[in-house]
């Protein structure tokens, strides 16, 4: 077998079998399962199947019915029960856990409803907010009838204003589509961001380990450093794809099983119902290119350090570039057509995230995306050639210093003067 493939498979299989890889993969799978089953999990912890029981002490004798009706339109899961006992008894019931809380309804001096809500804790803000909103509506209705507004007038007053949005550009995404795209792009950006940081780190560590354990000198006397570098980058690349494939398969399987319950929640709003193929294709392209860009950078930075401890320090500037790209992309999620976003999408170190953001969120001409990809490919090629030369010299350099001056030194080492 060609030595390139020997290194490639050695890198891949060794990492695949390593404990840390298996543990992180399993943990993430658990996380993915948890996320896609979130509704089921919430249900398990909710004893009453998500329903809350609230006792009502209606001192006025006339507020219970309208209040119940209003609440029904706001939250069906709150069960109101008219309580006939005294206030003390009701409080006891709360303490015993028979009901979550007790609400006392009465009229104030102006003949308008007011209430006191008592519960063991008032941490569950959504519950009493719902109660409050319902009572507010009851109050509004009764106040309106006090000043002799008829229901039709009242309805006019409260009717929401009609507000429609249109994008004039052809093919521009509608509000709904934009929301969908935003969710998808957000998740994919996260994947790109984490993968680039994690796997680039892995490569730098791999190179530095070989160098610090001094096995490097045997390796480079057997196989050319350039071959080694790319075999490693590809080996870890395959590893990353393996890991992502596991996540995607688990995620997809679990998601399709739980689709029904998730449709109304977060997943529905952010449009995972039907994923546009184009966005996924771009995500894969930018993921792979982004990986190669940063992996090459990481490989040659890793070749410059002599001790593993120095790896983090060496690749910090690279990590900051990734973080910067991610930050800009996060800003761009809200304002994808800002000129600033357009400009940064052509800076190769940011392109994988920001150009992807633009193709995912906006309808940009194909040439813009292609230009971004070309710039990225060209940068990768330049980095690979430059990086390979640094790598070749860097792996022979040992010493305390690990500054960027070493890049120059490493280049000198490979140069014929």
């Amino acid at each position: 077998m060609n030595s390139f493939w020997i290194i490639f498979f050695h890198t891949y299989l060794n990492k695949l079998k390593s404990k840390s890889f298996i543990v992180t993969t399993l943990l993430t799978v658990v996380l993915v399962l948890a996320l896609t089953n979130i509704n089921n999990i919430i249900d398990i912890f909710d004893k009453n199947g998500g329903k809350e029981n609230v006792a009502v002490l209606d001192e006025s004798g006339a507020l219970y019915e309208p209040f119940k009706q209003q609440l029904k339109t706001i939250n069906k899961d709150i069960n109101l029960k008219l309580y006939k006992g005294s206030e003390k008894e009701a409080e006891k019931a709360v303490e015993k856990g028979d009901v979550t809380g007790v609400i006392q309804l009465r009229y104030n001096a102006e003949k308008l409803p007011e209430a006191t809500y008592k519960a063991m804790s008032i941490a569950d803000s959504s519950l009493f907010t719902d109660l409050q909103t319902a009572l507010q509506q009851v109050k509004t209705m009764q106040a309106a009838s006090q000043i002799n507004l008829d229901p039709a007038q009242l309805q006019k007053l409260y009717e929401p204003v009609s507000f429609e949005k249109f994008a004039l550009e052809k093919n521009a995404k509608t509000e709904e589509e934009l929301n969908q795209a935003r969710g998808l792009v957000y998740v994919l950006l996260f994947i790109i961001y984490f993968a680039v940081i994690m796997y680039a780190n892995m490569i730098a560590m791999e190179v530095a380990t070989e160098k610090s354990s001094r096995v490097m000198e045997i390796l480079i006397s057997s196989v050319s450093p350039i071959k080694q570098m790319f075999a490693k980058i590809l080996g870890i690349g395959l590893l990353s794809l393996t890991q992502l494939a596991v996540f995607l398969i688990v995620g997809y399987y679990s998601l399709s099983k739980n689709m029904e319950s998730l449709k109304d929640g977060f997943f529905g709003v952010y449009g995972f119902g039907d994923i546009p193929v184009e966005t996924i294709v771009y995500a894969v392209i930018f993921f792979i290119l982004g990986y190669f860009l940063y992996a090459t950078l990481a490989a040659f930075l890793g070749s410059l350090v002599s001790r593993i401890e120095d790896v983090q320090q060496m690749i910090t500037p690279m990590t900051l570039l990734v973080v910067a790209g991610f930050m800009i992309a996060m800003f761009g999620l809200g304002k994808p057509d800002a000129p600033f976003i357009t400009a940064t999408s052509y800076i190769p170190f940011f392109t994988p995230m920001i150009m992807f953001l633009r193709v995912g969120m906006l309808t940009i001409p194909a040439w813009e995306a292609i230009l971004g990809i070309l710039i990225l490919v060209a940068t990768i090629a330049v980095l690979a050639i430059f990086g390979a030369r640094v790598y070749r010299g860097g792996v022979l350099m040992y010493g305390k210093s690990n500054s960027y001056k070493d890049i120059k030194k490493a280049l000198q080492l490979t140069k014929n003067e």
Partner: protein
Amino acid sequence: MVLKLEHVTKRFGQFTAVDDLSLTIPEKEMFGFLGANGAGKTTTFRMILGLLDSTAGRITWDDRPIDYSTSHLVGYLPEERGLYPKLKVLDQIIYLARLRGMQKNEALIELKSWLERFKISEYENKKVEELSKGNQQKIQFIAAVVHRPKLLILDEPFSGLDPVNVEMLKDAVLTLKQKGATIVFSSHQMHHVEEMCEHLCIMQKGKPVVHGALKEIKREFGKKNLIIHAEFPLDSLKNYPGVVKATPTMEGILLQIEGERVAESILKEIVGKGFIRKFALEEPSLNDIFIEKVGNSYE
């Protein structure tokens, strides 16, 4: 399959590591490199292996440069020992052997026989970091020779080993030589080179100060050592014509003389003066030659 270095020079910026080095290393011979730290031995080896490009000059093996197309014929034991600490001995050697173009099962057979030879078969499935330093060195040596190289470059193969292991490794190196490998090795220890090499080169600040066949070097050096143990004072011999250097010893004197003739006349001079327990004429040691040529001892 002659290894030839022709006017090889390597400069790192202002610093000249190797200066106009020309050597011929015949096939199937053992060639020794001597020199203090920083004399340019490792740099020379790296250039031979093609890890570094020479600034000037040419290095050829069998009239071709050594590059990655010949790497399956070359074995290298670097001075800085290093293996994957977390990898098992077996996986490690087989990986490195495969990188040198060997088949997996072939490498396995060869590895087993080496482990047996070094009496460390039980470590086959241990991680390298769990082994003692001496055993790690043996594994390192196996890594350099497992693919049966035709050209073997050993950078300080015996440093840091106990005498028993040095003998074991020496033995292995000699076996490889008998099997037809050309071996180049460097050492701090003069006597290793003296014992094992037909040809040698002493380097000093990147320059070869002595170079050639061991016997030739000794003959050309001319001077010999004369050891006299006697029961009467020998101090007067210090100024005897033909004596280059005199060192008093516990039992007599050690003289460095210009040739056999001088020994003859000294013998005539001292016979009859008293009882002579020892009168021996010896070849100069490499160390003597080194001191003479370089001007200072280094061992």
